[in-house]
């Protein structure tokens, strides 16, 4: 399965990573090389094999339904590039370029 420039562009969009147009060919070559290399897995017969579901042999732990977190708007917004103080001064918002729905 070979990746062409258009596919790389599509994947880069899915991953939201801007790749300059003049870098697409080189990137396609690299990715093809890696994909070509990992394809050797096709040599392995995996009929009837269950995919590994968990590396560690334990049950999924569950927590109690208690409010034990939150109320830390200051911390949550501390590293924001563009925090906005809420009009009521309690809490605040993250701001991003306008999205049109």
């Amino acid at each position, binding site marked *: 399965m070979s990746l062409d420039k258009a596919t790389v562009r*599509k994947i880069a*969009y*899915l991953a*939201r990573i801007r790749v300059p147009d003049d870098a697409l060919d080189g990137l396609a070559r690299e990715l093809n090389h890696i994909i070509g290399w990992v394809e050797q897995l096709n040599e392995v017969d995996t009929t009837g094999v269950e995919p590994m*579901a*968990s590396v*560690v042999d*334990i*049950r*999924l*732990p*569950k*927590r*109690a*339904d*208690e*409010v*034990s*977190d*939150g*109320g*830390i*708007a200051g*911390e*949550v*917004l501390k590293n924001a590039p*563009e925090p*906005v103080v*809420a009009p*009521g001064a*309690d*809490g*605040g*918002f*993250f*701001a*991003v*370029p*306008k*999205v*049109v*729905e």
Partner: protein
Amino acid sequence: MSYLVKGERGDWEAVVGLEVHAQIVSNAKLFSGAATQFGAAPNTQVSLVDAAMPGMLPVLNGHCVAQAVRTGLGLKAKINTRSVFERKNYFYPDLPHGYQISQYSQPIVGEGAVLLDMADGSTRTIGIERLHMEQDAGKSLHDQDPNRTFIDLNRAGVALMEIVSRPDIRSPEEAGLYLRKLRSILRYLGTCDGNMEEGSMRADVNVSVRPKGSNELRTRAEVKNVNSVRFVMQAIEAEAARQVAVYDAGGQVTQETRLYDSDAGETRPMRIKEFAHDYRYFPDPDLLPLVLTDEYIRKIEADLPELPDAKKQRFIADYGLSPYDAQVLAAERETANYFERVAKGRDAKQAANWVTGVLFAHVNETGKSIDASPIGPEALGQLLDLINAGTISGRIAKEVFADMAATGKPAKDIVAARGLTQISDAGAIEVAVDKVIAANPKQAADVRAGKAKTIGWLVGQVMKATGGKANPQMVNELLKRKLGG
């Protein structure tokens, strides 16, 4: 009678499936300990986990699992003992991780059914395909600033159940019944409060159309995030009509996501181009498969309340109610409990009439719940006792009820204070009847002449003269006797 959309060259059927997102009733979120209360100041109910800070990890809220299992059992559905949380990957500002933890290929609940009580008394079954747990996203506010969208993550990570129906729904009416029934079941179970205005229950409506009589499944469009039963019904009508028009014009319906504009009464496409809906689902490596034991499921099953369908059947069987009355009373758990307390040791049909009639009207006016009414079931029962003992007439009882609602006083006290005790003394009634006959010779003559209807008017006059307190049956009988009707 099936719902049809008239096209240019024939009739079309609507094929509708509903995906309901129901917020799970819980104190904390699905994978974090932040609170879930509606209406808090922005970003004050957000843990570092919800904000997707580097290195944060999810831990599953056990209560949410139990709520999902409860719901599955209430939908008569198969509980899957092994289910897997998967990541649904996409970029959106209200999705801080860049993925939503959901369940895709192995949901916690499988196939089930919801019974609709149709208006004509019949029932119709709508299949449930699956129910799975997932995180809610945060909120984007687009109207706070001309150039910026503001993000509030309070809702991000709140536990949702996504309940997916089979495309068995065929009309707006059925969709309305389905949503109301689903909400009723969820409220019975206490797993979701079904409050569509606050957003704790939302519906995505999948609509396609096909020529009447055909079995094909054509391309469907999805109308997202409709937040009232009425709008769901309107959206179906609008979208079905739109699709028929598209086909009539020789076009094709595209699979797309649309929004319902209630002001315009039409659906329109969402502007975000959701091209490459490639969510790249894969099992969340921060979690393990969820394995439930049979014992765990049995325990939850044993704890289920009597649900609306069973309650309705019991009301019909034990109280002799009509299916319609039974269904109305069983729709909400609080109402059903109220009714049963009134009906205990009394005439069930009378109790049903009073609850569904006078009491409902009063409750609707106050806008509060039946449990918040100042007239409790015992108080209403006493009122009925007074009627049945002949102490007051049914009409007077309605006045007394209004007083009870206003003052919270017991019926007995109001009747005594206002001297509303029914006059059942034959002598007193006769005096009043004679007076009225004497005062209204023309009408009396009419009755004697055979105009039976005028008796009603004369009864009315006697009731007026006695301040409404005369026993109306006795008045009627006496008038008939005296006027030879």
